[in-house]
């Protein structure tokens, strides 16, 4: 493998976006969770909902901050590493990203201030409005980002000028490109699942320590309710999205399923070791005909293989194939966990099954891993194009040296390792402390030693008289 400026720029963007995406995918779901908690507290006056809100809003604020910090970096990378892409595509992509920034900053950032610092000042109703606006802001932010990315996956509503740059001719076609509705629903469901798994894991962790902690019991049941519904829906959304990929990006589907030959009755490869050199799978375990049925709903459907594309037009197969399987494998585990949790809720005992609670804790990071794997499938599967079929990734890179990108990549790795380790550890410490309000610390006993007393730090005997 030759590490040139192109590959290093791709690695850098992949590294920074992998860090970034875990925060918005968590805060999108968490903002909605907070809105539900506050709405339930307002209507029922059950203190558990208020305590859960005050607990999770701290984690939301820290995650939101880390999401903003890691997102700003990527905006600059468009200019530093992908200046040619930015120059030719910004007339179309630029407004979509600008709307995302407006949504994120003018809804999320502004009303986050009211959420954190204004409950007593603005009163319950206006505070609830602020929480709702933040939740809407996170969803609006996802809308514009997925819209921009969907246009890169399947561009529509544009013309290309003589200098190679893009101009929008139909903004509705740009915003709502054919893959967009499927990808947006897939992303939003992924965010809700990620949040439900984290909330469930944190609550399960607390219940393993203290099975009688009422707030964690409530949060656990809410989390189970969310992913028991969202996980099967995600399977449906993923299937619809996959069928759309088969129609619009056949090379990506061929890489996802490790198909080399174009044929009917394609098998479904459960596992395989794809080899680009031999244009075949070195090893595979497959279910006959199932691949055609999954891709097109018909076992006799013809599904295109990678050999139908020139080698220079094929995406990397191995990483796309395995990222997809990790994502789907974890998705199936989430469905199983949801069914198990729903059964325990029906028997009213999820907080007393230690095996289930341990499984919940183990599945806590599964949403983040699935989201990152999903983005690997989407982005690596689009290669060798940055704008599918129109602009190759190699054409979009900035005229920069390998040394310059090496330095920035190493710097990012070091800085991110420090900042995000500290942030993640702080969040884990908060989760470990739990949502139950702690009793006020007892007031210190009256001071019996005057300031400056030589033995002030020594433990005082109970009968010590003031010197």
């Amino acid at each position: 493998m030759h590490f040139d400026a192109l590959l290093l720029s791709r690695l850098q963007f992949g590294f920074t976006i992998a860090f970034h995406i875990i925060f918005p995918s968590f805060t999108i779901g968490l903002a909605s969770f907070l809105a539900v908690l506050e709405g339930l507290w307002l209507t029922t006056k059950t203190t558990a909902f208020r305590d859960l809100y005050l607990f999770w809003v701290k984690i939301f604020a820290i995650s939101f901050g880390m999401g903003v910090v890691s997102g700003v970096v990527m905006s600059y990378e468009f200019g530093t590493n992908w200046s040619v892409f930015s120059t030719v595509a910004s007339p179309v992509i630029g407004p979509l990203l600008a709307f995302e920034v407006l949504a994120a900053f003018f809804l999320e950032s502004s009303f986050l201030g009211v959420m954190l610092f204004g409950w007593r000042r603005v009163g319950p109703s206006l505070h609830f409005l602020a929480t709702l606006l933040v939740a809407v802001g996170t969803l609006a932010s996802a809308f514009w980002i997925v819209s921009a990315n969907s246009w890169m996956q399947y561009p529509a509503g544009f013309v290309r000028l003589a200098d190679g740059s893009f101009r929008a001719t139909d903004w509705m076609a740009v915003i709502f490109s054919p893959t967009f509705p499927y990808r947006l629903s897939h992303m939003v469901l992924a965010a809700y699942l990620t949040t439900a798994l984290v909330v469930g894991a944190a609550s399960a962790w607390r219940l393993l320590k203290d099975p009688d902690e009422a707030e964690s019991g409530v949060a656990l049941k809410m989390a189970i309710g969310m992913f028991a519904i969202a996980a099967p829906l995600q399977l449906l959304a993923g299937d619809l999205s996959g069928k759309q990929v088969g129609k619009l990006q056949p090379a990506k589907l061929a890489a996802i399923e490790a198909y080399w030959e174009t044929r009917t009755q394609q098998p479904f490869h459960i596992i395989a070791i794809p080899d680009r050199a031999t244009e075949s799978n070195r090893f595979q375990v497959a279910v006959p005909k199932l691949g055609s049925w999954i891709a097109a709903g018909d076992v006799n459907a013809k599904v295109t293989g990678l050999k139908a594309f020139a080698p220079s037009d094929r995406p990397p197969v191995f990483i796309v194939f395995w990222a997809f399987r990790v994502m789907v494998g974890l998705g199936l585990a989430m469905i199983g966990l949801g069914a198990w949790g729903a059964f325990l809720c029906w028997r009213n005992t999820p907080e007393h099954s230690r095996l289930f609670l341990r499984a919940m804790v183990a599945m806590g990071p599964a949403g983040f891993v699935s989201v990152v794997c999903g983005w690997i499938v989407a982005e690596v599967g689009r290669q060798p194009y940055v704008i599918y079929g129109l602009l190759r990734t190699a054409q979009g890179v900035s005229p920069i040296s390998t040394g310059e990108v090496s330095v920035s990549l190493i710097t990012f790795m070091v800085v991110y390792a420090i900042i995000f380790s500290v942030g993640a550890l702080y969040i884990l410490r908060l989760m470990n402390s739990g949502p139950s309000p702690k009793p006020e610390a007892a007031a210190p006993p009256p001071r019996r030693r005057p300031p400056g007393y030589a033995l002030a730090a020594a433990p005082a005997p109970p009968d010590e008289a003031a010197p």
Partner: protein
Amino acid sequence: MAASIIEPPPEAGAPREALWKRLAWFAGLAIASVLATATVAYLLKALLR
């Protein structure tokens, strides 16, 4: 700790401020938050120029 700066809800039965005061706080906090964000954005822009 973050717990100390996050404002909890008003106590049950606590007297409410007038609506105009609550609306003023709502708008003031939102504008202050936007200004804080804008300040950071313009500092970053100035730093990178």
